[in-house]
């Protein structure tokens, strides 16, 4: 349709475009610029070229943030997808009980990260936590899960999986419901067992869903912050200092805006890469 007056689109899109420019695009450019300066938010910024990037690499901070983030993302993506798929397969039945269990699992995705973090902080407490007590009762070797640098990152990953498994379950359930029943019936008539039906019918048709779930959970786990801030503050011995937490720490604890901005720029480039991956997965979904 033609606009009734030529300039109508301008006021319709005006608020959107102004907000986009002021709160998205200018800040992005500003971050790129700040990454070349040394600035403590109080005194005048000082131009230092690529020193911030060099310092981040030389001090090992960038490498450390990258490795913690990657380890956590890998555990979270694999864990939440496997669990989400298994739950979707088990709960794809029309009983009331299944519906109840689905709601219980998805509710964790709806409550806040802070709630989930506090909840598990108590459950995992080294002295009096319920999980610790359970381990002792079952004679499973236990440790201070959040206080041990070897286990803290995995404990946070586990909590994150608990939080977002419902999300991948819901998407897998939607995918499962799109698969025509006739395909299963045909496979059954050909003598295919349950496992063969999964391998030959379910999984090939779920792959596009899996690609989508995988890339979105990857992006979610890259942006993890709340559980770290509430549960471990990046510790013990920086073992849970993931990317976003490192950025936060540089700004608000060290007052190094330039250093933080350099981390932001690297983080943004990583997100761009992940999104490219997502688009690629989507294209495959279109082709499938």
């Amino acid at each position: 349709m033609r606009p009734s007056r030529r300039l109508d689109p301008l006021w319709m899109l005006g608020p959107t475009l102004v907000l986009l420019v002021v709160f998205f695009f200018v800040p992005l450019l500003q971050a790129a610029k700040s990454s070349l300066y040394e600035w403590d938010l109080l005194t005048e910024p000082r131009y230092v070229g690529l020193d911030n990037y060099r310092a981040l690499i030389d001090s090992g901070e960038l490498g450390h943030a990258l490795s913690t983030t990657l380890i956590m993302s890998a555990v979270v993506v694999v864990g939440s997808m496997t669990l989400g798929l298994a739950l979707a397969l088990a709960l794809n039945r029309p009983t009331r009980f299944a519906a109840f269990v689905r709601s219980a699992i998805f509710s964790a995705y709806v409550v806040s990260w802070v709630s989930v973090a506090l909840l598990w902080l108590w459950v995992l407490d080294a002295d009096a936590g319920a999980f610790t007590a359970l381990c002792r009762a079952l004679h499973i070797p236990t440790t201070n899960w959040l206080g041990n640098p070897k286990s803290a990152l995995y404990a946070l990953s586990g909590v994150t999986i608990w939080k977002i498994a419902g999300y991948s379950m819901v998407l897998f359930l939607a995918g499962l419901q799109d698969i025509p029943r006739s395909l299963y019936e045909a496979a059954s008539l050909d003598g295919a067992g349950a496992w063969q039906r999964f391998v030959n019918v379910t999984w090939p048709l779920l792959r596009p869903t899996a690609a989508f779930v995988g890339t979105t959970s990857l992006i979610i786990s890259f942006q993890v912050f709340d559980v770290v801030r509430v549960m471990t503050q990046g510790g013990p011995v920086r073992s849970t200092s993931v990317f976003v937490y490192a950025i936060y720490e540089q700004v608000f604890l060290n007052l190094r805006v330039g250093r933080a901005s350099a981390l932001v720029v690297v983080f943004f480039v990583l997100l761009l890469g992940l999104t490219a991956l997502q688009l690629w997965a989507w294209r495959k979904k279109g082709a499938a």
Partner: protein
Amino acid sequence: MSSRETRTLRHPVSDGVVNVLLCLVAAVWLLPYLWMLSTSFKTLPEIVRAPTAPLPSGLELGAYRAVLESMPLARYFWNTTVMALGIALLQIAVALPAGYALSKLKFAGRGAAFALVVATLLIPAQVRFVPVFALLAEVGWVNTMTALILPFGVSAFGTFLIRQALMSVPDSLIEAARMDGASELRIIYGLLGPMLKPTLVSFFLFSFVYHWNDYFWPLVMTTDDAVRTLPLGIALLREQGTGVRWHIVMAGNVLLSAPALAVFAVAQKHLLRAVANKA
């Protein structure tokens, strides 16, 4: 096909085994909540003496009283609700005309405008908070509700959703309204807005819950009690060196998670739709 075959097709594993497994699964997700609730009704001596006792000795409300005494809970609650409501409503108000122009009107630069909107999906809060903080500090808006609401005024997801929904509205309807002398403003908010109600309700709930739960942005944008939100206040319970006072932290956590769970219980269908829509 015989009925026996149909059943084996639907359930490859026997119902009994599946139900036992599902009970275990339900326990993994529900027990932590029940544990939180149970702890919140305990007293300090109880927690010290028998921290893992499944039930409190009575419905002791001391922990809740302690939470109320340690923070201006009503104000945090109010701030959080105003912020989440403000963001969700602003997003819808801004996205409706934008979605209308992007789906119904032909003009030069439409594709570019749409691309710009979608591109913001690449710029999450964690990427933009430092410069936005500096900008807001310059105009003196740090520690105001504006700092919490305005930077989220445009939602790429919402704009996209509304644009998609408007595409299926026939042009003739809008043309008829124009013939009747309705202004564009009236068409957008008075005619199309109500027509899109299911989409808008889903999006509203999604956005409201998301921002009600948000921790990151209020954390970096506020230092003042006057504008602090509930997730921040409750997380502070833990930071103030509570030691073993877990009953107080859990009482706070009950107050924080109950509203979200209540919304979920009432509007589960809408929230699920919003998540499935995102895919």
